[in-house]
């Protein structure tokens, strides 16, 4: 039966049908739906781990125990999990371990566009890359077999355009995973599993030998293939980019690399020998290009195609025309000159009713420097709030704030971190602030969900990924347990309360925590009667517009509220200096 599914869904389905029974991940665009989909299959255990490193260890543990496992992450999550990935390459596993990792060229929703193909070479782990959903499903099975044959984790690389593209997959509605047969028995092998120097020294040659064998495997696997065509141009490509290039160069000969690492050197030489010129088309780093150059092959690559940003068929075509590789096509010209009108940008914004808005409004008014973190609250940096002054990677806020404090910054300073991010990587720096006699204030923006990535559960919500009720970590008791004695909880959209607490904490000489708690408005869907603006009283001063809430609109000579969008949170009522905005009696 033909079905239209995304690459993320296809990978999860392929893993399930291959007998994977344990999955672990931390959400991250564009990888999130892999684990969400996997969690929906019968008979599997799937979990949101607090971060990617924990997820990786859980996956490795399941594979040690003899059960096939899946770990999924976005590209930067592999940085967090790298330490664990590297030991697993040395120890090897028992049952198969599949790591699905999604890069985000173009940074649709990420803080960088690192090219994780480099991790394959760095960690010495095989990596394969599907180019559409059908392949994502098949590659899952291949990866698990490869993992067990060679006793190594295997990474499947996605990019946004394979994760979040749908294409047609032939699905057998009656297909079932293999029965949960005997697990491969776990054996206590200290020499293999305890990576003290003496043992690790014996494992490193095993790793090198494994990679040599995988290089041989790469020569013959159907994942890599030469697709014959006109031999003027030979194009090397993989993944989504292969599909774009196929469209732009329908006639060319292709070396289509389904296996990104290790590379099939004999096949590459054979390919280079049969075409006049070799063109390497790859997004981000010159990963294939450098390898081909090392083999002494002349290639055209990053001199023509950019090293930054996301590719598309249009981009490849334009770059090829510019370099004289393709003849110039008649540009799709305008019939009449396009009129000069400016189209205002539309960046994402905090939702109406979001508690982060009240928090930043008060922080801005207090004039403090805000070391931020990653989540919806990073939008506090956007106009008109502009009240967040740093965002680097998850969990960085608290440590950076402590460092700024010790570095002698004269300004008043706070760290702001979301609840999901706190569980991800904020706990260690929080303890560090206490231990090393810091006195910064940390604000936990607690909306009781992982908002940015689409509302996933975490250790503070009381539910697991598979919707089972579970223990709910009590943030206040937790930080008191660490040793914080100055801890307050309040709703940041009650501005007077929050302002008082903030001033009190900033005066203090000790490290402290404010839990700014208000459920995510998009998730709670709470809606109260919108306030009214009295046009007689409105002085058109624009103060309410400075909170950046989209229902508030500048009209001719006063501000009005779009009632369909407003959640009635009442924040604008609190900021209007003229008292023109008032709550309806409910």
């Amino acid at each position, binding site marked *: 039966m033909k079905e239209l599914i995304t690459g993320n869904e296809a990978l999860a389905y392929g893993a399930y049908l291959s007998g994977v029974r344990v999955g672990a991940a931390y959400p991250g665009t564009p990888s999130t739906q892999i684990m969400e989909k996997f969690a929906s299959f019968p008979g599997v255990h799937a979990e949101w781990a607090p971060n990617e490193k924990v997820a990786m260890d859980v996956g490795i543990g399941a594979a040690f125990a003899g059960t096939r496992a899946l770990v999924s992450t976005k590209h930067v999550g592999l940085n967090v999990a790298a330490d664990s990935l590297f030991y697993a390459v040395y120890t090897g596993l028992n049952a198969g371990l599949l790591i699905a990792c999604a890069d985000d060229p173009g940074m649709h929703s990420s803080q960088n566009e690192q090219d994780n193909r480099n991790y394959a070479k760095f960690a010495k782990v095989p990596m394969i890359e599907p180019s559409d959903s059908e392949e994502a499903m098949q590659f899952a099975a291949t990866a698990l077999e490869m993992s067990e044959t060679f006793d190594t984790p295997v990474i499947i690389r996605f990019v946004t355009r394979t994760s979040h593209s749908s294409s047609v997959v032939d699905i057998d509605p009656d297909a079932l995973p293999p029965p949960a047969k005997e697990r491969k028995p776990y054996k206590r092998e200290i020499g293999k599993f305890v990576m003290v120097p003496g043992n690790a020294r014996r494992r490193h040659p095993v790793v090198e030998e494994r990679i040599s064998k995988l290089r041989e495997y790469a020569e013959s696997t159907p994942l890599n293939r030469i697709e014959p065509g006109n031999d003027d141009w030979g194009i090397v490509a993989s993944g989504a980019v292969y599909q774009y290039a196929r469209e732009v160069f329908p006639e060319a000969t292709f070396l289509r690399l389904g296996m990104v690492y290790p590379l099939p050197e004999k096949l590459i030489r054979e390919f280079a020998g049969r075409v006049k010129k070799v063109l390497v088309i790859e997004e981000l780093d010159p990963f294939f290009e450098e390898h081909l150059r090392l083999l002494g092959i002349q290639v055209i690559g990053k001199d023509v195609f950019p090293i930054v940003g996301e590719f598309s068929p249009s981009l490849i075509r334009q770059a090829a025309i510019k370099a004289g590789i393709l003849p110039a096509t008649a540009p799709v010209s305008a019939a009449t000159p*396009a009129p000069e009108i400016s189209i205002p940008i*539309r960046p994402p914004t905090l939702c109406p009713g979001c508690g982060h808005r009240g928090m930043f409004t008060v922080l801005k008014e207090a004039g403090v420097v805000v070391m931020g973190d990653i989540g919806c609250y990073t939008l506090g940096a956007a106009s008109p709030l502009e009240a967040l002054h740093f965002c680097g990677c998850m969990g960085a806020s608290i440590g950076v704030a402590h460092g700024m404090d010790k570095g002698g910054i004269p300004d008043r300073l706070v760290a702001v971190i979301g609840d999901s991010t706190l569980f991800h990587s904020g706990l260690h720096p929080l303890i560090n602030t206490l231990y090393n006699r810091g006195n910064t204030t940390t604000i936990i923006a607690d909306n009781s969900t992982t908002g940015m990535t689409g509302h996933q559960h975490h250790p503070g919500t009381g539910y697991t990924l598979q919707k089972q009720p579970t223990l709910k970590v009590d943030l206040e008791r937790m930080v008191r347990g660490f040793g914080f004695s100055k801890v307050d909880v309040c709703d940041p959209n009650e501005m007077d309360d929050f302002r008082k607490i903030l001033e009190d904490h900033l005066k203090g000489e000790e490290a402290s925590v404010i839990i700014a708690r208000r459920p995510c408005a998009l998730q709670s869907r709470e809606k109260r009667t919108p306030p009214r603006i009295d046009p007689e009283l409105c002085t058109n001063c624009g103060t309410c517009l400075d909170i950046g809430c989209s229902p508030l609109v500048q009209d001719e000579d006063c501000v009005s509220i779009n009632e369909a969008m407003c959640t009635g949170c009442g924040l604008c009522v609190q900021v209007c200096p003229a008292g023109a905005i008032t709550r309806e009696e409910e």
Partner: protein
Amino acid sequence: MKKIDYLLAGVGGQGTILASRILASAGLEMGYDVKTAEVHGMAQRGGSVESHVRWGEKVHSPLVEHGMADYLIGFEMLEAARWLTYLNKNSVTLINRFRIPPPLVNLGKASYPSEKEIENLLQSRGGTVKWLNATDVAEDAGNPAMSGVVLLGALSNLVGGDQEIWLQVIKRLVPARFVDMNQKAFLAGRDAGRD
């Protein structure tokens, strides 16, 4: 089998992803190979969003090329104008007469172009522009949030496919309790698009 490339443009939260699924699935039912590309993550936070849907004999890239869109479906006026470079002289733009002012306009720091300006801009590429009050039609059918399904109804007149195919796809992709309402919105769009 002729290729048909679609670009759906709107504001995060307007339902472009659901509409692109319906459109792609309908193409699959009609015997096309199909691919889509969409962007998640930030999408629900009110930013510009676009989905690509491609029908053809054999589709490689999920992304539509500049100047190659056969249909641009604008869920919101400004968002339709943003994707001008995808149009050519044969393109049809189906546009919802509906404004969501972006932040700079709310703040009075930029102005929202007039309907005439947007129409002139879209026509500068030589294609046709069809306006539809899709949000109003959707509201009459039960909920203004179904404007995307109304637009698909109007589009279905232009790209073929038995009415039943579309209704079945909607039934399969929309949560059970909203099926009737969405089918009604689709049919209302189909009628409105005929004028």
